[in-house]
């Protein structure tokens, strides 16, 4: 491929006891794309992105990000390098205000820029909240907001980290149809400034957003290709229907 | 004294210490195992057991044995009832949140201790042993009652083991310990189990106290030492593991008796506390926990 590889894994594996949750995965992402990661329950999707984000350590294999081996880098340092992870289950700080939630991310990102101050943080927070459309709620306590807004806040926190790679773990879960629609617009907008790795069950969303789809099953890559390729792939159908 | 006889004495003392410690620590371990509650007031239940024993024994002016055995029955019951009530009134309302229950049991510690101070007073008071029999060995004498305590503790331990592993009650408790929600899904009233376990844990401490009080006297501040030692034993043995608790109590009891002769007892305490702390940090399942089961 012509474009630069942003992230790649080689032989990445993670075993829990006898279970091979992620098994020898070679995976590459190009800069600027929207990649969807799909697969049936228990296929190892969440384990795989946890390995990318550094939440768990791999049993074998290596991860490279921007040409640098990050396999042994602790999670917080990967974030500083530009990998942001938003949680599958909403994981905001419910007792803090929306502003403070995002300010934490902004603060983390701004450490890369020396001599930034409180007003720089505020500026970044405004920008991130503006992008997800939560600007007028910055004074609210995050936990009191509606679920859909909490998901957006989660994304804003990811954005304020100024990631090069944004991992969205089931972002549309629990959202209503209209919310999903605006969410898709948001992801497309995000993709103009960052590479997006999307784990999603909602196939219409995947089909609409993804440039490339990777299908995991039993911890291995079952298929990879454009949405139309995947739609036509018999093995994928089989995996979903439980015969694989 | 020559080393041989000395070792014998240290062993006897160590066994006595271990016997009492096992019972006390078992109570703490049971409560932690089943309820996941760290009961900081455990030592006060021990103290309460001794104080109630004095009170019961002093009501019977017949042969000391009558008072003692009456205390052995009544004291654990009263202590158990108090523990039961405090579980219902306090711990249950906290929903067994680990950190809140620690703070609450610290509060209970003071409440029990200070209430005893108000009612029983600050003196150390003796309870007569059911019998006095001094065994004269060639090198030193030893109290026959101490041997009785060791034997009684072994009998009690076997009883606890039997209840836990061979009875319905034990099965219910173990099921609750492993998966509280599934226990509920199979009709086990876990709230009642919790209250019972908390009371039973306190009763074990109380029994240990009744056994020891003819040797050590009842005093309102006597609860802190057994508490810390029980913590040490439970951590070493693995939180919630019965077999580990017994092994650790023997280890601590015996080594304490022997080490403190070669080193200062304070130094022995410093070293053992430090070691146990490091065990908790670096091997949180305990030395004999989990895998030994």
């Amino acid at each position, binding site marked *: 491929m012509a474009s630069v590889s942003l992230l790649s894994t080689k032989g990445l594996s993670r075993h829990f006891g006898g279970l091979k949750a992620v098994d020898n995965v070679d995976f590459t992402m190009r800069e600027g794309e929207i990649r969807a990661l799909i697969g049936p329950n228990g296929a190892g999707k969440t384990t795989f992105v946890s390995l990318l984000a550094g939440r768990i350590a791999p049993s074998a294999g290596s991860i490279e990000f921007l040409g640098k081996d990050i396999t042994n880098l602790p999670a917080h340092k990967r974030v500083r390098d530009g990998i942001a992870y938003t949680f599958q289950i909403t994981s905001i700080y419910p007792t803090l205000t929306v502003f403070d939630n995002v300010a934490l991310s902004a603060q983390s990102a701004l450490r890369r820029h020396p001599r930034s101050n409180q007003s720089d943080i505020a500026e970044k927070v405004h920008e991130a909240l503006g992008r997800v459309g939560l600007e007028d709620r910055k004074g609210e306590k995050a936990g009191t907001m509606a679920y859909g807004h909490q998901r957006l806040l989660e994304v804003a926190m990811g954005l304020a980290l100024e990631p090069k790679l944004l991992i969205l773990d*089931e972002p549309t879960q629990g959202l209503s149809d209209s919310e999903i629609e605006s969410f898709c617009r948001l992801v497309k907008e995000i993709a103009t400034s960052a590479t997006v790795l999307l784990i999603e069950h909602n196939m219409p969303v995947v089909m609409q957003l993804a440039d490339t789809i990777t299908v995991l099953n039993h911890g291995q890559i079952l298929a990879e290709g454009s949405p139309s390729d995947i739609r036509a792939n018999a093995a994928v159908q089989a995996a979903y229907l439980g015969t694989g | 004294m020559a080393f041989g006889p000395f070792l014998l004495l240290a062993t006897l003392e160590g066994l006595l210490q271990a016997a009492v410690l096992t019972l006390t620590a078992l109570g703490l371990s049971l409560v932690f195992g089943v309820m996941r509650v760290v009961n900081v007031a455990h030592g006060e239940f021990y103290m309460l057991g001794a104080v109630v024993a004095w009170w019961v024994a002093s009501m019977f002016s017949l042969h000391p044995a009558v008072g003692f055995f009456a205390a052995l029955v009544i004291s654990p019951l009263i202590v158990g009832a108090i523990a039961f009530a405090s579980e219902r009134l306090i711990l249950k309302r906290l929903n067994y949140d680990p950190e809140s229950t620690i703070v609450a049991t610290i509060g209970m510690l003071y409440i029990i201790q200070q209430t005893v101070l108000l009612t029983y007073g600050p003196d150390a008071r003796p309870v007569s042993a059911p019998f006095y029999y001094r065994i004269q060995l060639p090198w030193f004498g030893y109290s026959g009652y101490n041997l009785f305590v060791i034997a009684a503790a072994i009998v009690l331990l076997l009883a606890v083991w039997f209840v836990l592993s061979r009875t319905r009650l034990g*099965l219910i408790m*173990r099921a609750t310990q492993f998966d509280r929600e599934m226990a509920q899904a199979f009709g086990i009233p876990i709230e009642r189990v919790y209250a019972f376990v908390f009371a039973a844990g306190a009763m074990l401490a109380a029994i240990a106290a009744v056994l020891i009080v003819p040797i050590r006297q009842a005093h309102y501040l006597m609860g802190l030492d057994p508490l810390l030692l029980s913590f040490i034993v439970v951590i070493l043995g693995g939180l919630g593991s019965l077999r580990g608790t017994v092994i650790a109590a023997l280890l601590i009891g015996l080594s304490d008796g022997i080490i403190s002769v070669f080193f200062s007892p304070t130094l022995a305490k410093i070293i053992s506390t430090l070691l146990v702390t490091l065990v908790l940090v670096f091997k949180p399942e305990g030395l004999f926990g989990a895998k030994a089961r």
Partner: protein
Amino acid sequence: MLEVSDLDVYHGSSKTLQGMSLTVEKGEVLCLLGRNGAGKTTTLRAIMGLATAGAGSIRLDGTEISALPAHERPRLGIGYVPQGRRLFSELTVRENLEIGMMTRRSPQRVLDETLSLFPRLQERLGQVSGTLSGGEQQMLATARALCIDPKVILLDEPTEGLMPSMIATIRDVVVTLRNQGKAILLVEQRVEAVLSIADRFCFVENGKAQAVMPVEALRADPSLLSRYVGVG
């Protein structure tokens, strides 16, 4: 037999069930289908009293049980086979079954019948259940629930992670139970499994039953699946 109507369940401040309704009749298998997090497991947990229900009602044989404490519900005859089996893994097979027997003081007959369904467990009564193979564990989890002699059985993804042969065994047992007249509420991801044993199925989305229909409808129109579950 079992009737859930307009049930709300909160988890923290967010609603995981909002207005869930379903009924399961004697001698039928109702299968819940839906995406991850749609509220299937929560529905089962709410019926067992393990998830706190807000508004709504749960009736068993016409009796309202939603106010009962969790431990009293199985005593009315609801057997639960949870996701991930959740055996008392440090207890032996026999002890796990004993706990089931204790729930409603089942007669010995129940144990005999249960073991006759799972002969492999009969051979392993003394074994610590955590050391069983995955399939055996699933058998034990099911057997444990059967030991309470239930009228209603709730099964949460019983075939998850099992080998095909084991899946067949579980399926056969479910069919046997249905034929015995028990009401079965099944959560299942594998459409194939659903098609082979369910009588009716129910799509769950956003904590609510979106559609209930006989399984024939799904057989006739597989696109229903992608519409509701988003597969394919």
